[in-house]
């Protein structure tokens, strides 16, 4: 039960926060997850603006548990270019440790940079890369 979303807010388009990629494992309740992720954006923004970071540190990219609700936990991660990744995990899935979430974010980040490196990809386009899809599916399968 692991929905993923990748939200974008490139620095350039600051007010915009449109999703570049959303994927969730259970096909039902997808709208609910969309909503959750969207609201969690606020929390992400708050965390990002709160930390007046001098050195962009890997630790600071990972925002950790944004907020838990009764059903699920939301984790956030922001990259240096203000691209936000949000993972929503089922609360019942307690086996997921923080480290695992971190590694998932790291993998996401890596595949995301690969997508960006592709000159045929324009930042701001929805991510259609099969490699990216593959990695995300792999992660979701692995955790569910």
């Amino acid at each position, binding site marked *: 039960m692991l929905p993923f979303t990748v939200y974008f807010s*490139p620095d*350039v388009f600051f007010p915009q926060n449109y999703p570049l990629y959303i994927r969730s494992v259970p096909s039902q309740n997808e709208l609910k997850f969309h909503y959750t992720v969207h609201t969690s954006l606020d929390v992400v923004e708050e965390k990002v603006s*709160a930390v*007046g970071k*001098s*050195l*962009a*540190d*890997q630790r600071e990219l990972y925002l950790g548990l944004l907020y838990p609700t009764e059903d699920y936990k939301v984790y956030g991660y922001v*990259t*240096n*270019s203000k*691209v936000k990744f949000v993972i929503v995990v089922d609360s019942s899935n307690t086996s997921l440790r923080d480290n695992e979430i971190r590694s998932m974010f*790291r993998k996401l*980040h*890596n595949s*995301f*940079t*690969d997508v*960006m*490196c*592709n*000159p*045929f*990809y*324009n*930042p701001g386009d929805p991510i*259609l*890369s*099969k*490699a990216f899809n593959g990695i995300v599916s792999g992660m979701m399968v692995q955790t569910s």
Partner: protein
Amino acid sequence: MDQESAAASGGSLISLTDHEQRYYSGLHALCQADAPGKLSSGKVAELFKASQLPPEALHKVTEVCGAKHLGYFGTAQFYIALKLLAAGQSGLPIRLESVSGTDLPLPRFAGLKNEPESRHAAAPPGADPQGSAPGSVARNPADRSTFRHLEASAEKKEPWSPPRSPCSSPPRSPLAYRGYPYSKQRNGVDAQIPYDNKPSSRPGAQLEQHSSPSRYVSKPAVEHPAMARASSIERLNQQATMNYSDDDPWRMTAEQLEYYTNQFKSLQPDLGALILGAVAKNFFTKSKLPIPELSHIWELSDVDRDGALTFTEFCIAFHLIVARKNGYPLPESLPPTLQPGFSQREEEQIPDTPESLEPLIVFEDAEPRSCQVDPSGIGRLEPSVATRKQDLQGESLKQDTSVKRLASSREKSTLQLGAFPERPEPHLELDPQMRTKTRQRSYSSTSIEDAIKKAEEPPTPPPRPQKTHSRASSLDLNKLFQQGAPGVKGGWLLPPALPPRPPTSQVPHFLNVSEQATQAKVQQPNFADFSHFREEEESSVKLEEQGPSSRFGLSSEDLTSASKQDVSGTPHSQAPQKPIRRKYHPESQNLETGPPPPPPPPPPPPAMPFPPPAKPSQKLLSRQKREIQMAIRKNRETNAVLRRLNSELQQQLKVVHKERVTLESQLELLRPLAST
């Protein structure tokens, strides 16, 4: 039409048998150029090369047949040349006399070897080829048009036909090109024959490759932009169809590799360098494939994921595009035959570089030095590069190279361009290994490392005056006490020297010292500042009393300057010593009123670690490095501390703010009551 002119011109000079006539006209059609009567010298060169005669012989042929004189290959010259080739192949001297009138076998060409035989064999030359003509016509133009589309800059593709530049530069208009396949369809059966028989003689390899593209016949023609790409493409087509030896469409032939090499060179003269993503994008976009497919091809071919294409990657990408154009669906992952390791083996078979200016001097057996070494070197290094890439990814995560990577594509390209100038430096090194390694590094991390290093170096200027530190620091302290400026300098030296020890333990040291002697105050405040700082935040008591008390006890000036220190210390945390030093300069002078004491114990203990290493002047550099590292560590700790402080203060601020808000609201409530 061809035959008539051929007969006319050929017959005037030499007599051609009927057989030869047909053969030559077929070849003539092969080398057809748009300018009537003029043959594409490139293709002719190709043909000559395929005849496998030594280059001198080929030169002679050109000379004798009159093409050299004319500057181009006319039909007559072509036929004569063919005859001369036949003569040369049969061992006769290449002279006009030898060709006129004698019965010569047909000239044999490496790839067209089967032609004469199949021509002989194909008794009804029209029937079979005609049956296969549509199919092969579809095949060949598709193949041809494939490369036609792919060639982005044919203007640069002239290298192998320069001597005939007057005739080769006339634009090979796409019309002529387009007309070629169509004319073939209509009436060029004879011309088709050599072409068709070739494919049919092959064990179906080409059938496999060109099986589906019949629909591409019209499509490429429609899409064909007005770019002059004819010569090299046709040549490559010929070669590809001539020497296609594999069944596997994912296998790159030597000719295709040559072609890709040419293309690479047109984009990037150095085979060892990378093609930037933007450049490659423009280039591949000209192939008219849809962008998602191109994106997928890029993903497949950019194995090291650096956003740029090495020569091997470029070949892979090009080959994938070719295959796609020919109708093959894109694979999900890179076929094994296309993988860099494999292609490296292929590259070693490259017979020659088409870059040679003399089209006829194409050494079939010569090994091209640069062309081959680089790709093979690069290919060999692909796996090592890949592993390096992973290492770099690990590094990059730590070093936040993602900063650069995630920048917008514009920024990325500028970064690449910025990183790229670093690459020309490695090119000076002849070792391709170094080249690839530095390329990897330079793209993703060197610039970052440089940035980080630069960021970290300015904060630590102190190491520079180290040369005075070559002596025992006690001497410095002597100077320190006796004169103001050098004394301060010497005193200034000590703080950076101290970091090797944990600062907290050093501080009491210093503090004790300060209690003992006033002179130590000069150095001590420098450190006491930090300890004071640290203590305030960590609220460690033991140092707090000593530090501030001892310092403040000395003079009120100390206090003010100390507080000023704190303030200035924070913003200048990166260069702590400097402001401190400046501030305490007057201080020390004020304090100098005291009798200059003997070199007190403080110098010796902190100096203890230093005299041994300091004495030998050769160890200066290592000590400087150590000190820099110490300073860096210190700065980091300071940063962490400051950050913590900052967050705590902010929390406090929030709390206070809330209180204020509540109080204000209460006030608002009460005020109306009070007023009324």
